[in-house]
């Protein structure tokens, strides 16, 4: 059982993390290649505070707050750049994060932090915590989609100039997306540190950023159920692929590539087109 518990906990954390990126990239259209930095900020904040004697649950809001604040700062910087420039700037953020953290002795430097005090929950309880939080985050994301904020995000994602013409304060919305997305990443980070009991700078680097973006795009960018599925699947894939041993990453890379090549909308895209085909079968001529 412990194996499944551990896997499910990791999945829950990945789901929160992926949804948080989806908020920024999927909803608001601001591509980010450096999201792992915020996972890291959350993880380090929570771990340091736990070690300082704070109970784990008290560190959660602090981790979110700190990640969110740094997120706003990064957001402010990224207001100046667009599209691919933004992508590369955010990529820079993650390299800076790793570059700075690894030099900080008080953050454990290259060694990272281990022996993080427990949360008081047993492994099963912690799994339910992770899954529960993941569900909450998912509900929150769906709510955003339905609210006016979701509409504005969509507009900003498609054409921010026109949104300005409609009287929308685009920078503030972008910042709001960054703040919410990075705070949630901070939450995921706190859980991450607690789950793995060890964190180091390399755990929050470019690779991790790319991995989470893959989860989002693989599931179907912008689609909450799709992203949940993508995150759950891709986070477990390497473990399930143990049996192909040497070919594990080869297959992983291949799967990513083939998915994009044949269903650019990700899993959500496949589901959507299946549903469409079915409804078209029932009532010919139906469109949209």
């Amino acid at each position, binding site marked *: 059982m412990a194996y499944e518990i551990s896997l499910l906990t990791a999945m829950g954390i990945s789901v929160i993390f992926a949804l948080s990126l989806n908020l920024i990239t999927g909803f608001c259209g601001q591509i980010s290649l450096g999201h792992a930095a915020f996972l890291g900020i959350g993880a380090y904040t929570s771990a340091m505070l736990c070690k300082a004697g704070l109970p784990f649950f008290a560190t959660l809001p602090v981790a979110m707050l700190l990640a969110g604040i740094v997120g706003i700062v990064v957001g402010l910087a990224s207001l100046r750049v667009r599209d691919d420039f933004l992508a590369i700037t955010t990529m820079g953020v993650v390299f800076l994060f790793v570059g700075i953290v690894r030099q900080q002795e008080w953050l454990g430097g290259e060694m990272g932090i281990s022996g993080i005090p427990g949360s008081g929950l047993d492994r099963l309880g912690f799994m339910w915590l992770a899954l529960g939080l993941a569900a909450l985050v998912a509900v929150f994301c769906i*709510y*955003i989609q*339905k*609210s*006016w*904020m979701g*509409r*504005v995000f*969509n*507009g900003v994602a*498609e*054409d921010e*100039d*026109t949104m*300005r*013409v*409609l*009287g*929308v*304060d*685009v920078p*503030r*919305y972008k*910042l*709001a997306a960054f703040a919410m997305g990075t705070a949630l990443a901070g939450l995921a980070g706190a859980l991450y540190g607690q789950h793995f009991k060890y964190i180091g700078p390399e755990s929050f680097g470019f690779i991790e950023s790319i991995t989470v973006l893959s989860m989002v795009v693989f599931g179907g960018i912008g689609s909450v159920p799709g992203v949940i599925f993508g995150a759950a699947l891709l986070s477990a894939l390497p473990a399930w692929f143990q049996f192909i041993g040497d070919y594990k990453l080869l297959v992983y890379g291949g799967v990513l590539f083939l998915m994009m090549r044949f269903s650019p909308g990700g899993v959500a895209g496949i589901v959507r087109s299946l549903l469409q085909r079915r409804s078209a079968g029932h009532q010919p001529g139906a469109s*949209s």
Partner: protein
Amino acid sequence: MSQTSDSALLRVSGVTVQFGGLKAVDDVSFEVYPGELLGLIGPNGAGKTTLMRAITGVVTANTGSIHLGDQELTHLPIHQRIRKGLAFSQQLVKPFRQISVLDNVALAAGAAHTRSPLKSLLHTDSAHEREVAREMLARVGISRHADQMPGIQPLGVLKRLEVARALAQNPKLLLLDEPLAGLNSKEAATLADTIAEINRQGVTIILIEHNLGEVMRICQRLVVLDNGRRIASGAPREVMQQPQVRAAYLGTDAPAESTEAHSA
């Protein structure tokens, strides 16, 4: 009407816009009074669109100032100018392609909800805005297309969508950049009537248009630009009689009347 510059709704004074070495707008001043329908005309490349963009903040004026009522707009970002009561439809139409024609207009109508991120997060209902949107679509005559996607609409529909979207923002001053382009004469006349009607209902309008027939028909006053400079202004007929306007705009040989009669 006693039209002093104090009572002006929009006051543009000494605005210059420069792109590199090119002065697209060169020291232009004019006023728009409440309730007016002002035609802004001039040759291609005269700087009309640029002037409109300077008013709305899409480009920043190098010099000069812009006032709406007693508020200075000159250094405000676009969205704040819009919130103070400007709305505009652009020469190149840019609808949101992912949402229906109706939702495009509804999004514009929801300005009250989208004022701040927090407000927008707390509102989900859009029935009222969709109602407004339907009304606007009906007003410009494209109700039929309400539930279709904008991506497949022909130009004429998109042009009117753009006007409807601007109207939905419930502006004090509406700037229209060539709304009639791409419409045939009947459609153009209808939309021009709509514009005049909107104006009668109290919305002040600046209309940029090359369809002189309609311009002469519905505008109360004209401002003419050429090479970035204001070369004339006044009542439409008088302005069109001025030789420098005729030379710049109509070609020296064309009698003004023929051009008017032509589309009227």
